[in-house]
């Protein structure tokens, strides 16, 4: 009966739960799914992390390459994020060039990196005007069950914290870079931005960490990204139902709490990785 109701009237099905202040998977309205984090899962990458938010699974790998800095910014390296939503992760994605959601997500991640100053591009410079690091941050979704943006940001942050760059010296005589793979150093991560996504149902009910079903049925989505100083790095709401300033404040409060939880989680996992080595 319940299964039939869910298929025939998905919105009614969800609303009957939301009216009772709970959700079909047993969570409260402002409760996240279990967040699992695995750092350093790809040994061939310079830094990597795997994040699970309930069944949403996202993996991020960071590849550092040497490049020439651009003429406009000779003292800066650059970061190239890319979010891939392959057909593997959900039936809604088709093979071929990246769809609108993948492109919008990539742009969002790029904006977050730039806004939060998670990595200072100056830190990626090796030799001013001649040599710098490019960090390719490839984020891939393995299982799509909603709230991909939050998962992507956690994966990116954890992977950056895990990144070890080899020492590079420029040989004065030959003008060629010499890479010392044995001597690696950590990347200075300045800020710890964490995203919290919300969905709005029926113009008034706010839920956090939506699943794919909830995302498609909701009337609006909202993502708040905050750092450890409680500064906002992004408030992304691509249209949908309008939101009052009071509701916005509730979202921001929830986001700052979430930031602390995730930062703690990342520290814990990093420590356990270090202890294991």
């Amino acid at each position, binding site marked *: 009966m319940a299964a039939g109701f869910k298929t025939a009237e998905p919105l009614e099905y969800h609303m009957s739960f939301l009216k009772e202040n709970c959700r079909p998977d047993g969570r409260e309205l402002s409760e996240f799914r279990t967040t699992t984090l695995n750092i350093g899962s790809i040994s061939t990458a310079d830094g990597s992390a795997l994040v699970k938010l309930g069944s949403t699974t996202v993996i991020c790998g960071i590849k550092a390459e040497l490049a020439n800095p651009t003429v406009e910014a000779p003292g800066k390296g650059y970061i190239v994020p890319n979010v891939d939503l392959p057909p593997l992760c959900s039936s809604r994605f088709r093979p071929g060039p990246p769809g609108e959601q993948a492109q919008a997500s990539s*742009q969002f991640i790029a904006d977050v990196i730039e806004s939060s100053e998670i990595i200072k591009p100056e830190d990626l410079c090796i030799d001013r005007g001649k040599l710098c690091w490019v960090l390719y941050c490839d984020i891939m979704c393995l299982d799509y069950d909603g709230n991909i943006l939050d998962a992507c940001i956690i994966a990116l942050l954890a992977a950056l914290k895990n990144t070890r760059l080899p020492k590079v010296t420029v040989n004065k005589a030959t003008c060629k870079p010499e890479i010392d793979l044995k001597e690696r150093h950590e990347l200075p991560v300045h800020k710890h931005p964490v995203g919290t996504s919300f969905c709005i149902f029926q113009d008034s009910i706010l839920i956090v960490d939506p699943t794919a079903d909830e995302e498609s049925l909701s009337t609006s989505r909202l993502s708040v990204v905050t750092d450890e100083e409680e500064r906002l790095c992004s408030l992304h709401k691509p*249209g*949908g139902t309008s939101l009052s300033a009071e509701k916005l404040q509730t979202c921001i409060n929830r986001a700052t709490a979430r930031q602390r939880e995730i930062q703690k989680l990342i520290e814990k996992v990093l420590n356990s990785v270090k202890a294991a080595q």
Partner: protein
Amino acid sequence: MEVSAPSNVSLREFGCEQSLLSRPDGSASFVQGDTSVMAGVYGPAEVKVSKEIYDRATLEVLVQPKVGLPSVRERSQEQCVRETCEEALLLTLHPRSSLTLVLQVLHDDGSLLSCCLNAACMALMDAGLPMSCLFCGVTCAISAYGQIITDPTSAQEKESRALMTFAIDSKERKVMMSSTKGSFSVHELQQCVAVSQRASERIFQFYRDSVRRRYSKSL
């Protein structure tokens, strides 16, 4: 939660012309200072079977940059404009049809996304599509000294510490869309929302005046 903000809201001079193109069903050009966007709307028209939605119209938004091909940045703008328009339009009145909104950037001198939103709203109105409310876009920049500049030029945008664009609805002046760049405090955000809400009053009044001008011949 009252937030005090400077009372004067300065917006650059804006201008608008409706139904200036002959082929589209609705068109408008919107100018804010030196930023200028042209919008054309086609529809309700026949929809491709793959994009058909059984209970509402399919809205497609295309943002064409001044030079080059649309890139990831335009995709993200398209998403913002589309979802804002979807909320304002009564799409359920035209099920299984398609609406296409094309936004051609003519010149970008800052506040581009808000200009796109304003042009889109005027073009949708010109096409006579059923709407539940109007919306307008306001861009706020926070300068290095913490000053809020509404409707910034691109030079002001470059110098700013944070940049926020909001879409405000005409019914309750609530935030429909938000897109930000740079980091800022919660207090600054609230101030910017309040300033945008005040700026929206002026833009909605301008909408009304330009629609009145358009219909002056049939009064």
